[in-house]
């Protein structure tokens, strides 16, 4: 699977859905939010949301800020 994750081109052959992508980066226990092609994907949909070739995915989290 060829994906763009956080702006970087990635080849992730074993990743089929959002939950697996999140697990690939070991982020499943963290407060991360997923966006695909500009739309937020709720945590409840991570398992059912299948990834497609060429999708642009953002994995974001909270950092310090004022």
């Amino acid at each position, binding site marked *: 699977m060829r994906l763009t994750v956080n702006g970087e081109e990635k080849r992730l052959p074993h990743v089929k859905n959002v939950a697996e992508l999140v697990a690939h980066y070991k982020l499943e226990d963290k*407060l991360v939010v997923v966006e695909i092609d500009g739309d937020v994907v709720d945590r409840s949909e991570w398992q059912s949301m299948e990834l497609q070739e060429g999708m642009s995915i953002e994995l974001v989290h*909270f*950092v310090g800020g004022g």
Partner: protein
Amino acid sequence: MMNDDFVIADVKLKSRLFLGTGRFANPTVQNEAIAASGTEVLTFAIRRVNLQEPNEDGILQHLDLDRFRFLPNTSGAKTAEEAVRIARLARASGISNWIKVEICANDKTLLPDPVETLKATEQLVKEGFVALPYTSDDPILCKHLEEAGAAAVMPGASPIGTGLGVLNPYNLSLIVEEANVPVIVDAGIGSAKDVVEAMELGVDGVLLNTAVAEAKDPAKMAKAMKLAVEAGRYSYLAGRIEKRRYAKASSSTTGYLSK
């Protein structure tokens, strides 16, 4: 303090100090400062996870989530559209539907873009967010933001991170006079003196970050800010004396021992 509730979007807050979480040396220093500040509202930013180090600490791992309200910001956005996108991501975390609208189009001053800030606020209110826009200290713009449904308006004292303090007390006092929503001075605070000055103008609260995070002793400065917010609020409510050009004796002017 009797009948002096500080309410934002039906939430009653005990502390009038909002604290940012950027630029602290480490989580221990940050938590000491948060505790000393007495704040109930913490601000954050949203950024990409670093895929090379996905396990590096997220800011929230070191905090007791039940004790605070979270006010994520839209920093990094240069347009209303980008701010709305960041706000949706922040809300999807499930920790808050409050959003600090922050749209800076000039990298040198980080001053808020008034047109985009108003557009974003209108949109976010439509989408059910509790929107608290960081804005220029312009009374007319603050009125427009209020009319757009902002839960509070947050004019800057001076540019972010400068510590220049309150540059335009006249404008801030006009904003206070006109506003029907809470006014929170956001950005530019350098020390406790600036906080007292802002609070004495009648603003409802203060949001600051760098002044505490980069103080030599952040926890001590956080305590100073807490006391300054309270001192300034009491002073405002008490009503200060008129300024006089010449002295006025504080004791009786009769009964002097010598003539």
